[in-house]
């Protein structure tokens, strides 16, 4: 078992620039404040269909979680929320720049990070960082960090999974710092280390007889 455990920090969901500049790749972060979920449904509705964002951003929260919780609605309109886990963020690349402009988000939280290009183009100019969930997924641990569901917007229009959940959290985590204010990526750093081993690993294996269009044979590449 490895010996060195990562540094652990608490962070507000409306973090100051100073707090963000403190973060280093691989730090473990626990969040306090309010987060909201927004993924393809919310992005499409807000950015393409130009619906008014139903909460005050970033005043209420600067933390956009790529997530749909395991939750249901009770007969009295209250919510039963269990586990919370992120969904893969790279799919939201086409909206993230416009969303940051519209929402002032400083923390993008999700699964698996985004590309370094996204970080340089959108995150760095907006002073934002990416936090990745751990596992994946530590849904029960993250669920423990939920104090209450403050609101659920657009659940009729988008369904519970795509709705905009507004969640008050305390010491919610763990999350890992995947990108910093300079736009460096922890995942890409790890990929580079692992890539050094790949040529030896593949030695003796054989490319398939029947090829496919549009593939890469460079294992240092990612497919996202």
């Amino acid at each position, binding site marked *: 078992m490895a010996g060195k455990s*990562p540094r652990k920090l608490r962070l507000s969901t409306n973090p100051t620039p100073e707090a963000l500049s403190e973060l280093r790749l691989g730090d473990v972060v626990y969040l306090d404040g309010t987060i909201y979920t927004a993924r393809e449904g919310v992005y499409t509705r807000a950015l393409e269909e130009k619906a008014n964002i139903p909460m005050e951003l970033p005043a209420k929260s600067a933390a956009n979680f790529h997530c749909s919780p*395991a*939750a249901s609605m009770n007969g009295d309109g209250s919510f039963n929320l269990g586990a919370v886990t992120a969904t893969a963020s790279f799919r939201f690349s086409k909206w993230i720049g416009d969303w940051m402009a519209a929402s002032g988000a400083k923390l993008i939280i999700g699964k698996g990070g985004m590309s370094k290009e996204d970080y340089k183009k959108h995150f760095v100019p907006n002073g934002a960082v990416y936090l990745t969930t*751990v*596992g994946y997924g*530590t*849904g029960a641990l993250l669920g423990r960090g939920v104090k209450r569901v403050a609101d659920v917007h657009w659940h009729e229009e988008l369904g519970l999974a795509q709705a905009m959940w507004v969640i008050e959290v305390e010491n919610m985590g763990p999350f890992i710092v995947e990108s910093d204010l300079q736009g460096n990526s922890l995942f890409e750093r790890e990929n580079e280390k692992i890539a050094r081993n790949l040529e030896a690993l593949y030695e003796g*294996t*054989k490319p398939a007889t029947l090829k496919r269009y549009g593939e890469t044979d460079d294992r240092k590449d990612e497919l996202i």
Partner: protein
Amino acid sequence: MISTTLIQETAETLMEKAAIEIPQDYLEGLKGAASKEEGDLSAFVLQAMLENYEAAKEDRRAMCGDTGTPRWYVKMGNEAAIEGGPVAMETALRRATANATQNVPLRPNRVHPLWRTDHNNNVGIGAPEIEYAFEPDGAWIDLITVHKGGLFGTDYRMLFPSDGIEGIKRFYLDSLVAFGKRGLACQPAIIGIGLGGTKDACMVLGKRAACLRIVGDKNPDPKIAALEAEFTELGNNIGMGAMGFVGSSMVIDCNIEVGYCHTGGMQMSVHAFCLSSRRAVARIFSDGHVEYRTDPDWFTPYQRRETIEWEDSAWLEKAHAN
């Protein structure tokens, strides 16, 4: 006669168990991986997952917020009789899926592929899938629910006999390397490999190899069992651990299932059953007695039979002895 009320009640319990309780075989496999992991970040992730399983059980909440796409495998003894017949049973399973989605709660993941309609209950066209198999003896039914995670880690390729084991190895590594980066496959996983059949059958075999066999069991063909062991080790030698961080925790176990295929082909599929390997099983007997377990015990000698007739118990014993 097995009552549909009992089927529905049992199915609701299974839905909850699958979502909340990590199966013991996977848990032990993961603890083994954690004890060997030398990558700092990967080790931290595995430790967090171990804590997460405990939190899920203590709080009775789903272990992962993405509760996958619930499906059912039903196995019936040849003498089993169900009140109302299979149609009533399917209704009971659909009802149980919807009720558990509300009550556990699970994430209502299932939507229409084009219109994205969400009934908020994991039920819709073709959802949940219900698949069947039969066994020669017994008046029981086995209900198995699997809530496999959905988007990454699975691939299919038509290989040919000339591609050989080295071609199989390459496609296996390609699948792990491609989906292991950033941990998209939610590894370390139980990797299921389907070989042969037809394209659709190959996908089914591989998925069942991942979801319906447990950590530690072996294919009865000793040469395939040797491949399973070799592939487990190969996967853990990529240099990649949990979340795609540097490490050695990629494959908890590799299970291979085969089916007879076209003489010119060698279909291959790869599937990853993730850190939340959700499965739960119950056998319902005709007297109303229910036994819960986590081993689906799906691939019996009867399911892997090669002959025209199902001979008799002598065949069964021989197959078990191998």
